């Protein structure tokens, strides 16, 4: 990557650090939500964008992070960081356990198998007394939006730096090779099983921490909200909208979509979901390869870029 985008990103991060001293309470709610969603999209990007494995199971890792924090804090009165660690351990164990059988599946079969996971995990947790069964858990109440904001921002920076490393490293080259042609990748000397599992574990780790932060911030969790499959759909949409397999695409994509949704929800609450759906449909038609691809394409070919996408999709 050229130094300019990195310099811009560094400046933006520094400016973002100071947001809590300027923003209203409502703005802070939105900002924390947007940052955590961006983490989810970016973490999904490691597996879905770089490795080409479209996962609908990342909400499982999010839920486990949520419950890790909640169980540690509500049931055992342990500090927050222990909760985060517990969430990470649960999510990574789960990633290893399900990754080995499930990563053998390709394409739509992988997506379908992961889709089942969130539902299954929600059902399991609903029957565990330690996790508050189907009632849920209440975490110690704390009003510290600034802390949650800075934590979320820090996590997003960490996650993005990881993705940046992936994009430049030998490991990342292996992941992209798997995405492009897994059989060829294998015969070229890539241990595809290990690469895929490491990608899944990285993805699970960041997703879980986002879940832990969200749990403590919201301070109440139940199985339905922790293992919400629509959350996973949002991760996919945001990452794909921004540009899967790029470093900054999922970030920009998730911020823009969060902002659009927030604006629609506050101005015309009833039709917000509908309009949001229209935005997604238009995005898929005009820029199916995401924002990152569009910026390059428009710079090279101008408006013809959009026409070409329409033609390629035979619309």
């Amino acid at each position: 990557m050229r130094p300019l985008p990195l310099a811009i990103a560094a400046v933006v991060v520094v400016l973002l650090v100071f947001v809590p001293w300027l923003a209203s309470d409502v703005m802070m709610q939105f900002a924390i939500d947007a940052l955590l969603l961006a983490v989810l999209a970016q973490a999904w990007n490691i597996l879905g964008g770089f490795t080409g494995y479209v996962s609908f199971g990342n909400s499982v890792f999010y839920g486990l992070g949520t419950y890790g924090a909640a169980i540690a804090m509500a049931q055992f009165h342990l500090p927050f960081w222990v909760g985060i660690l517990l969430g990470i351990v649960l999510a990574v164990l789960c990633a290893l356990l399900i990754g080995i059988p499930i990563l053998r599946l390709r394409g739509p079969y992988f997506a379908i198998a992961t889709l089942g996971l969130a539902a299954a995990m929600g059902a399991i947790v609903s029957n565990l007394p330690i996790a508050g069964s189907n009632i849920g858990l209440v975490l110690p109440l704390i009003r510290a939006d600034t802390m949650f904001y800075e934590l979320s921002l820090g996590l997003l920076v960490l996650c993005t730096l990881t993705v940046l490393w992936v994009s430049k490293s030998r490991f990342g080259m292996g992941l992209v090779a798997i995405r492009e042609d897994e059989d060829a990748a294998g015969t070229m000397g890539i241990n595809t099983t290990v690469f895929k599992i490491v990608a899944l574990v990285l993805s699970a780790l960041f997703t879980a921490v986002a879940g832990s932060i969200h749990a403590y911030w919201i301070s109440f969790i139940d199985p339905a909200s922790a293992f919400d499959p629509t959350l996973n759909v949002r991760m996919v949409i945001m990452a794909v909208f921004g540009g899967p397999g790029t470093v900054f695409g999922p970030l920009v994509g998730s911020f823009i979509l969060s902002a659009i949704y927030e604006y629609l929800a506050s101005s015309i609450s009833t039709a917000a979901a509908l309009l949001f759906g229209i935005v997604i449909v238009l995005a898929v038609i005009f820029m199916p390869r995401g924002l990152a691809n569009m910026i390059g394409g428009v710079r090279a070919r101008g408006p013809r870029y959009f026409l070409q996408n329409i033609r390629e999709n035979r619309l």
Partner: protein
Amino acid sequence: MSAPGENAAGATTRIPILQAEGITKRFSGLVSVNRVSFEMYENEILGLIGPNGAGKTTLVNMISGTLKPSDGELRFEGQPIDALPPYQRAHLGICRTFQVMKPFPGMSVLENVTVGALFGRGGEKVMAKARRSAREWIDFTGLSHRVDARADSLGGPDRKRLEFAKALAMEPKLLLLDEVMAGLNAVEVEEVIELIKKMRERGVTILVIEHVIKAIRSLSDRVLVLHHGEKIAEGDPAAVLEDPRVVEAYLGRRRQ
């Protein structure tokens, strides 16, 4: 260690790099490759020919590890390799091209070849070094003018060059070329023949599957013929191509 075929010209003194013994592949009742045994010697070019459906690609798949033999044993440099997955065979130096070219479509030419340098036998850990050696192989195969092009934007001959550059960047000891000349015109075939000769000069042992008999003639030290999954002839190219059984396999029985 079994002796090589009697008519294996001058090969007796060399060391086998690959030994196949009684290799068999059955697909639910259908025998695709039937008890095929052969050896390849260091730095030789072995031509593998046979009519369509003879089992040539299946044999290559078993050597590269994408298919497991139903029976028989494969040894590479004296070590059995039957239990190794494809990526470990690549690390040993077994490298293949595909009949249907398999470049990584969304990657640039340079990135494609870099993958070979990063994960092949050389296994370069440093990205910058891997890129540098990838560039050298791209020059070697004459693809320097397309270094930054996306692999899926390349035309036929350039795709073959890319496939060669990827394979070479892996620093193979044994290279399995599966119909790399299919679809090329006479001039391009000539270029690829030269490229294969250049690879051999660098010490690579090469198995060439080809229907272009001219190429087989000018490249191969020995030729092995498969028909209905069985080895029907092996040895000196000129002699094998005149063998009545080989002619019959390709053209059918001559009327009396």
